């Protein structure tokens, strides 16, 4: 699979797919999309990069071990549920706040952070599986 064309295109393809996965993640709150599908797109981006350029560049690019990313995602999701504790509402209640970033009002919510956590869990665990399989193939 390591043809010149594929290797040249793969980095661009990967960056585009990751950008798109973040778009899908953020879009998911009111429209089709969300953390799970976003995470899958991002994981396939890393898988493509791994097929084109080998597994170790992917691991270097990720810097953190995929399982650690997955664990961080689980932590983010769990904490966004626990935040309800401070507001005297039941576990996992959606809490909203508005912040202004450079004059643009942005809605922030625990739901968003939960979804980001899901995104990272899916990204981490699927990438971890994919890289392990690709390593076996090339090694």
């Amino acid at each position, binding site marked *: 699979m390591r043809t010149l064309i594929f290797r040249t295109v793969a980095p661009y393809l990967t960056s585009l797919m990751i950008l798109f996965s973040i778009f899908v993640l953020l879009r998911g709150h009111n429209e089709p999309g969300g953390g799970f599908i976003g995470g899958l797109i991002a994981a396939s981006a890393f898988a493509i990069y791994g097929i084109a350029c080998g597994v170790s560049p992917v691991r270097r690019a990720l810097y953190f071990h995929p399982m650690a990313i997955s*664990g*961080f995602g689980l932590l983010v999701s769990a904490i966004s549920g626990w935040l309800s504790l401070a507001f005297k509402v*039941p576990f996992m209640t959606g809490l909203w706040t508005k912040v202004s970033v450079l004059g643009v009002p942005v809605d922030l919510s625990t739901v968003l952070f939960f979804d980001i956590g899901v995104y990272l869990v899916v990204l981490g665990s699927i990438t971890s599986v994919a890289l392990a399989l690709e390593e076996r193939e090339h090694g």
Partner: protein
Amino acid sequence: MAAESIDISNAMLTEPTALGDWMLVAPVGLPILFGAVLLMVRHETRLHAGIAIAGLLLTLGANAALLLQVLADGPKVMTMGRWLPPFGISFTADALGASLALVATLVASVCALYAMKDIGATGRRYGFYPFLMLLMAGVGGSFLTGDIFNLYVWFEVFLISSFGLLILGSTDRQLDGATKYAILNLVGTTLFLTATAYLYGTFGTLNMADIARKADAMRETGPLMTLAVLYLLAFGMKAAAFPVNFWLPASYHTPRIVTAALFGGVLTKVGVYALLRVLVMLFPVERAELSGVIAWVAAGTMVLGIMGAIAQSDIRRVLGFVVISGVGVMLAGLALGTEIGLTGTILYAFHSVLAMTALYLLAGVIKELGGSYSLHELGGLYRAYPAMGAFALVLMLAVAGLPPASGLWPKVLLVRASLEAGWPWLSFAILLTGLLTTIALGRVYILAIWRNGPSGVPADAATGAPGYGYASMALLCVPIILLGIYPEPFIRVAEAAAVGLLDASGYIGAVFPAEAVQ
């Protein structure tokens, strides 16, 4: 800003949540938090045991606080995301769920302690402790959830974690055992999911309190008997009831001994719990119809299980069959369905969680000292390690149901209940199982510990006492002996749990406070 004027009190809870209610979520939320942290520090294996034990002790504290609250004020409810039940997913803790969650967390903490010795750096890097935490999140969620689909989700959570724990080490034997375990458990899970889909199609709700209050009206028209049978089969597989228990002897002797201890102690009891919850609380009339079948299944499970134990020569395989026969004894109470019978079953579940875990840990210590699990090779341990012999005696008496340890009182209750119900043959089966258990474990004791070994005392008898093994067994022996000589508090809890199952009005009233007033 029109949204702010909408009255949300018809759809959402409006009173603030008391801090004490968080004890309901903590037994699930804390293990997930700690499991996530452990995943992140996967390569810092030295930190794992400390983090996991701290997390489990916090969970244990939350469980104890929850049980005390439930015993004092009745079932507690927290519905996720403020939606009113049955639309939000409710966590509902009654005496049954809270007490089993407490016992399970206790043995998990002890297993985490023993794992400091049993699981080396490689096992930790493969993720023993994260899997352990996520397994306990799944088990805690199963015991505390009040929603039957959510119960399925928690079953999946602990099932997937248990796959990870089973293959830790990746030897051929483990993969072989794990494949059988995985496939047969997935069949059970699929049945569970099918039954739940059918139930949702029938009732239009998944909240267990909602199902319990609607079941009477559905009885004439709905296929409740079909549902009850499907759940009996699905959870019977999970609980390892005869004749769908062949996955357990095929897999429980393959993992690391501390994993086997946790599985043998806790996992089958989750199946028994689910049977109790669904058949006794949701489908009581159907359970009464099925009681004859359940009684035969119970008798078959306990007698054939323990006969399997007598035939084995590997200690871990013996224990696997003893676990199965214990499940049979618990099913006897389910078949009877009376208050005393269910009290006996629940008390037996407490006993079995503690004693089976301790017995598996004992097997680990025997392996550590004698160098083998095989009864053909072991011997002479009594002379070299009298303390280990003492632990073994107490634990084996406990499992055989002899005083002064924990197995006696649940069996007394179950025998009495089956005599009162006019089923002397069931009490005979329970007593016969007790006798055969004594023979099976007595055989282990004589061959592994009492007799002189084939080569006398083991050559490496000079190795020091196994500190972690003794500490873990001593920790478990405290409640085991307490249950034997001062059973009243335990029986009171089990009785409260049984009463709460038989009369679901407290459970329903906690989820739907408006109904309780009427």
